[in-house]
């Protein structure tokens, strides 16, 4: 290696080296002449110098160096071509590298915990949905189960339970994401704390909670100004004081897998009792095995395998529930960071789609540059023929041409790497407001870009190099511009590839745009327009458990007493809000292992009036149902589980038996897309209610706010249109369309430049022929046709391939985004029109040049 560096230093400072050698030998000669006197025999100095010089040169290095210098010189001589190629390649490599940087940061960067491969997630498997080939759902464990496991499991060196507490007020300012964790959380994960320590086991004892907290690095920096005396400081969560005992390192953002991905504050599970002192369900939640569900993870004990641990955990849980019918199977997965298998699948397929898109753009750029190189190689045919006829080896020439391509590729990779330093951060900041762990390129990215450059160099450089050095010396020397005879030329293939790729990308973008349009028009099954959502923020320490139930009842009565209210209803969550609530149910007499996952919403009867969801069978909820054991179900649930009539049937959810009193029409109240089986229960005291009201006027909102304030003066009330929820549900498709649109535009631009280049070259190559034809009286129209016609087949083939590819890709897209129809004729038509327009623009210049040729001058052209 050092030797190579010394050789390279020699190459770069060659002149200096040689001058030194010459001077040195001259000195030698002078002394020797002195010694021998005149006429003494002298050696051949020049030969000696040559031999001394050769020591430095490894032959391959020497010729590579020459090629490199030559290549750079050639590129500099054609600044237009070089600039174009660098722009195309640089931007596409940049986009590619940027995406990889994100992927690297999210998925490849090691999790900042000790030995992450030994951390496992634990789930209960919930039985697969009968009759459907949906994968089995997963569920967490009860805290009691986790404590039992933590005490008894020998294959696990640590067990942790965690549960999001949601956004809470920190020091009076709203929204800090708080995460409840078991006492062993930090020590089991092995998080090296930035300041202070993690939790101790004794700080998380049910019934004897300690008010301690660990705060995230970002929160510490942004909200507390990086206070060096942070340890021991008091913070208030919902008016309950906690003492900060530790700060996490900057790259540990927590283990919460939903939005937001960063946790601000961690507190022990037991401290739930401090936050909700009046909630009688806290103690059972912390101690009873019947209260599900917390996320679970564990660290494998040294020497234990995942299978062993899974077997032991299953056995222990069976012992724990001792005889109870609940013996759901247990699953241990190795994906510690993305705790939910479903989440990972979704994220991965989205990334695959994006990689597909950016790779297509890169290929497009390669095809483009390949074509330009091909045209250039044709112009250099004479030079190459001379070299071949003088005895240059074909391999040698190919190598030289490849070195030129490589120079381009490496320079472009440099640009790409620079891009990757700022682009990912910029885009991610646009997309989310959550902090993303450092997004700078690292060695992985460097390696990826280098490989990308090498591959793309091969992709665009090799074919033209092979093509250019094909025999035919005599013909080339005579400079007979060969009349185009073989039509399936490399150039045609490259042109077709460009067209095909731009069709695919544009079609993808078009489908997404149309998807957004359609999604806005599609009927989600309920009428969200003109509905206001009035949400309230109650002091959490005062309202929990039965007090929330009382509040809900008081609110219902209060609203009912306001005479002039338009239709209104209460719900535990507004339709399409971020949080999704699921429950599981079984038929009476079935074992718990038959539980099926369904979506559910806690509502009042007015909910269906406000949203205009009709009851299709049975009856709506009644006011006397409030908190009672009845339920409504939607049509999908009715069809799937009670095909012979649902009304009057009983279902068991948890330990409660509920009677189905009615069936409502399907409505996408949980998430856009296919409607899931859904239950609607009478609202009780488990959630802070939101009020839905069908009115656009501020006066109505004020009336409702007045009712809320009357019951609880400390409440903070917010009003927002329901359209907002709908918009944010469509948001992913909008962003997707934006990204795809940008890529599509880039693709279109590149393809246009490529087409223009190909046609321009055709005109140049056939100038003499065109001149003859024009001298013989050909019309401009015929000349234009002559130029374009030769490429029409390539264009057609490209279009066909592109549309076929697009249909394939669009199925993938339709899977990901709501509202996308893979065979949307309008989208395809628009793409074809766009491409036709681009092709027209691209051919206009060359065509005009062809028709304006001076016939006489053209005949003299060579």
């Amino acid at each position, binding site marked *: 290696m*050092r*030797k190579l560096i*010394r*050789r390279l230093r020699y190459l770069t400072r060659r002149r200096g080296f040689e001058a*030194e*050698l010459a*001077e*040195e*030998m001259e*000195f*030698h*000669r*002078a*002394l*020797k002449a002195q010694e021998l006197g005149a006429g003494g*025999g002298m*050696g*051949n*100095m020049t*030969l*000696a*110098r040559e*031999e*001394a*010089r*050769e*020591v*430095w040169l490894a032959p391959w290095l020497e010729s590579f160096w020459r090629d490199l210098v030559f290549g750079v010189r050639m590129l500099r001589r054609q600044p237009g071509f070089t600039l174009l190629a660098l722009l195309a390649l640089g931007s596409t490599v940049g986009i590619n590298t940027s995406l990889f940087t994100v992927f690297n940061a999210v998925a490849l960067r090691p999790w900042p915990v000790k030995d992450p491969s030994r951390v496992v997630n634990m789930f209960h498997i919930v039985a697969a949905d009968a009759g459907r080939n949906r994968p089995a759902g997963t569920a967490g464990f009860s805290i009691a189960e986790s404590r039992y496991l933590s005490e008894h499991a020998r294959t696990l060196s640590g067990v942790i339970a965690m549960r999001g507490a949601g956004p809470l007020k920190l020091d009076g300012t709203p929204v800090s994401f708080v995460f409840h964790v078991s006492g062993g959380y930090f020590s089991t994960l092995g998080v090296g704390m930035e300041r202070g320590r993690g939790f101790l086991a004794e700080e998380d004892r049910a019934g004897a909670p300690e008010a301690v907290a660990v705060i995230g690095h970002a929160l510490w920096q942004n909200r507390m100004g990086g206070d060096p005396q942070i340890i021991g400081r008091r913070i208030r969560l919902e008016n309950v004081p906690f003492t900060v005992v530790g700060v996490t390192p900057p790259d540990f953002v927590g283990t919460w897998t939903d939005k937001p991905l960063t946790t601000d504050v961690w507190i022990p599970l037991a401290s739930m009792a401090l936050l909700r002192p009046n909630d009688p369900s806290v103690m059972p939640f912390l101690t009873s095995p019947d209260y599900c569900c917390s996320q679970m993870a564990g660290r494998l004990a040294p020497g234990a395998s995942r299978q062993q641990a899974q077997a032991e955990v299953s056995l222990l849980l069976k012992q724990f529930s001792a005889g109870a019918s609940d013996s759901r199977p247990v699953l241990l997965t190795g994906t510690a960071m993305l705790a939910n298998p479903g989440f990972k699948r979704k994220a991965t397929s989205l990334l695959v789609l994006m990689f597909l898109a950016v790779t297509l753009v890169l290929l497009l750029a390669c095809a483009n540059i390949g074509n330009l190189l091909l045209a250039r190689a044709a112009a250099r045919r004479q030079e190459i023929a001379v070299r071949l006829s003088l005895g240059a080896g074909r391999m040698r020439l190919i190598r030289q041409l490849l070195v030129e391509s490589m120079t381009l590729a490496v320079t472009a990779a440099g640009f790409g790497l620079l891009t990757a330093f700022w682009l990912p951060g910029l885009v991610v900041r646009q997309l989310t407001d959550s902090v993303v762990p450092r997004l700078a390129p690292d060695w992985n990215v460097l390696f990826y870009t280098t490989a990308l450059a090498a591959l793309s160099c091969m992709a665009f450089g090799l074919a033209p190099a092979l093509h250019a050095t094909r025999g035919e010396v005599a013909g080339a020397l005579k400079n007979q511009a060969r009349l185009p005879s073989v039509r399936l030329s490399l150039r045609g293939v490259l042109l077709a590839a460009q067209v095909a790729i731009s069709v695919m990308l544009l079609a993808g973008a078009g489908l997404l745009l149309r998807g957004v349009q359609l999604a806005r028009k599609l009927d989600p099954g309920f009428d969200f327009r003109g509905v206001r959502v009035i949400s309230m923020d109650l002091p959490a320490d005062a309202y929990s458990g039965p007090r929330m139930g009382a509040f809900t009842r008081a609110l219902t009565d209060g609203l009912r007493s306001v005479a002039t209210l338009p239709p209104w209803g209460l719900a535990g969550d507004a339709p399409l809000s971020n949080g999704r609530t699921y429950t599981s149910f079984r038929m009476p007499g079935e074992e718990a292992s038959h539980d099926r996952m369904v979506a559910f919403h806690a509502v009042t009867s007015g909910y269906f009036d406000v949203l205009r969801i009709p009851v299709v069978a049975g009856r709506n909820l009644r006011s006397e149902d409030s908190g009672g054991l009845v339920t409504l179900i939607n049509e999908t649930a009715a069809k799937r589980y009670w095909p012979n009539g649902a009304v009057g049937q009983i279902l068991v959810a948890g330990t409660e038996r509920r009677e189905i009193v009615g069936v409502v029409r399907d409505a996408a109240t949980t998430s856009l897309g296919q409607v899931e089986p859904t239950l609607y229960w009478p609202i009780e005291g488990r959630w802070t209610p939101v009020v839905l009201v069908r009115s656009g006027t501020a006066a109505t909102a004020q009336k409702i706010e007045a009712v809320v304030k009357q019951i609880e003066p400390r409440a903070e009330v917010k009003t927002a249109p329901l359209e907002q929820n709908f918009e944010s549900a469509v948001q992913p498709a909008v962003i997707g369309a934006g990204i795809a649109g940008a890529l599509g535009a880039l693709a279109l631009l590149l393809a246009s430049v490529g087409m223009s280049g190909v046609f321009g070259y055709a005109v140049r190559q056939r100038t003499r022929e065109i001149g003859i034809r024009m001298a013989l009286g050909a019309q401009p129209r015929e000349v234009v046709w002559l130029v374009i016609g030769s490429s029409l087949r390539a264009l057609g083939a490209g279009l066909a391939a592109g549309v076929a590819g697009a249909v394939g890709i669009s199925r993938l897209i339709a899977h990901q985004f709501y509202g996308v129809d893979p065979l949307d004729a309008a989208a395809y038509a628009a793409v074809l029109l766009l491409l036709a327009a681009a092709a027209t623009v691209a051919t206009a210049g060359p065509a005009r040049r062809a028709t304006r040729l001076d016939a006489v001058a053209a005949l003299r052209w060579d």
Partner: protein
Amino acid sequence: MGETNRSQELLPGTLDLLILKVLARAPMHGYGIAQRLKENSDEVLQVGESSLYPALQRLLLNGWVNAEWGASENNRRARYYTLTAAGRKQLTSEREDFDRMIAAIQKVLQTA
């Protein structure tokens, strides 16, 4: 090239060893090295430029010697070669190899 014949009769690689050995005593310029070799071998080893300079470049390339310009005895600019640490190590190991080789040759010559 008559005068270089002798040096070409050296065993291959021996010249490098001899140069390293000479430089181990003190830094020296190319001519000086040739002189020293001649003197120390009672005029048997007369190393010509066409062997000496390639050998010196080889040693430079391998990082066994450094070259620096300095003033010569008669105040001319001359390029002085110095042994590096790597060169010193190389000298020891080459010396051992050489000794072993000579011993082996002698053994063959005596017994065969």
